[in-house]
């Protein structure tokens, strides 16, 4: 079935259609856990008083943190953690393997603990290529993160996943 997969006009019609917004709470605990996960010992990610002494609102989320999901049982993918939101694209991808293809983030502000962000996401691109083990589907999603307190867009992120 995967070998017969083709990108259809029905799939392309889903480009740009936002799914239900998702709330991301940036907490001190989640920032510290992420910093530990990447092996950083920079106090700017752990010590609130130190971060404030450097002019930040609270500890600073490491680059790459944004997109770390808030997990709600039954509402997130149990393996990857991403939200299974209502609306948005439904592609019925037949491939079983999944790898990251690329990540690009534009920062319009520094993300700190205490921020509550609303994310909207949509399908931006689909590409089908031949790989060494058959067809590979490149799926690109674009997400926009808005600070719920100020209404200001603080980050935009483009994620490409490879299904094979």
């Amino acid at each position, binding site marked *: 079935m995967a070998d017969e997969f083709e990108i259809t006009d029905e799939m392309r019609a889903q480009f740009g259609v936002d799914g239900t917004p998702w709330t991301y709470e940036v907490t001190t605990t989640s920032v510290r856990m992420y910093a530990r996960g*990447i*092996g950083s010992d*920079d106090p700017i990610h752990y010590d609130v008083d130190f971060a404030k002494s450097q002019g*930040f609102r609270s500890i600073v989320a*490491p*680059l790459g943190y944004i997109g770390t999901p808030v997990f709600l049982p039954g509402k997130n993918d149990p393996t990857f953690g991403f939200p299974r939101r209502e609306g948005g694209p439904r592609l019925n991808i037949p491939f079983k393997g999944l790898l990251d293809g690329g990540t*690009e*983030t*534009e920062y319009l502000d520094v993300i700190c603990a205490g921020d509550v962000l609303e994310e909207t996401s949509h399908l931006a691109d689909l590409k089908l290529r031949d790989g060494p083990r058959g067809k590979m589907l490149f799926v690109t999603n674009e997400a926009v993160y808005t600070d719920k307190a100020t209404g200001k867009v603080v980050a935009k992120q483009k994620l490409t996943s490879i299904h094979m």
Partner: protein
Amino acid sequence: MADQMYFEDVKEGQELAPIKISPDKSQLVKFAAGSGDFNPLHFDEKFPMLKAMGLSDNIVHGRFKYAQVGRLVFAFAGYKGRVKKFGVNYRGMDMPNKEITVGGVVTAKRQEGGENLVDLDVWAQDVDGKKTTPGTATVALPSKG
């Protein structure tokens, strides 16, 4: 954190101080917990998809490497600088317990919209020197003036 870098101090071709890491499975499990990505591809040696994908061992998360490039760029910007944009492509796989070197070089410096911007080529490379995770970044640096 190294001393603050200022726009006037930066030169095209300048290399960033590299980061060398050899993440073990324990580190990848910590990253899974911190990032919420519990794909068994990264920690379960018996995960059936490994063989189906032609792999004999777990692989390092792409987003882990992205975060390492982020550490490099964040350190270059310093606390007074601001990272405006950075992105990478995942072109090759890296394996646990193998050294990964994260590096970067200044490709341009410019003033735009009242900001002192520095463009970078960045990457993570494996022990054979292959850039498995190449990308670019743009950083705004403070001025001495």
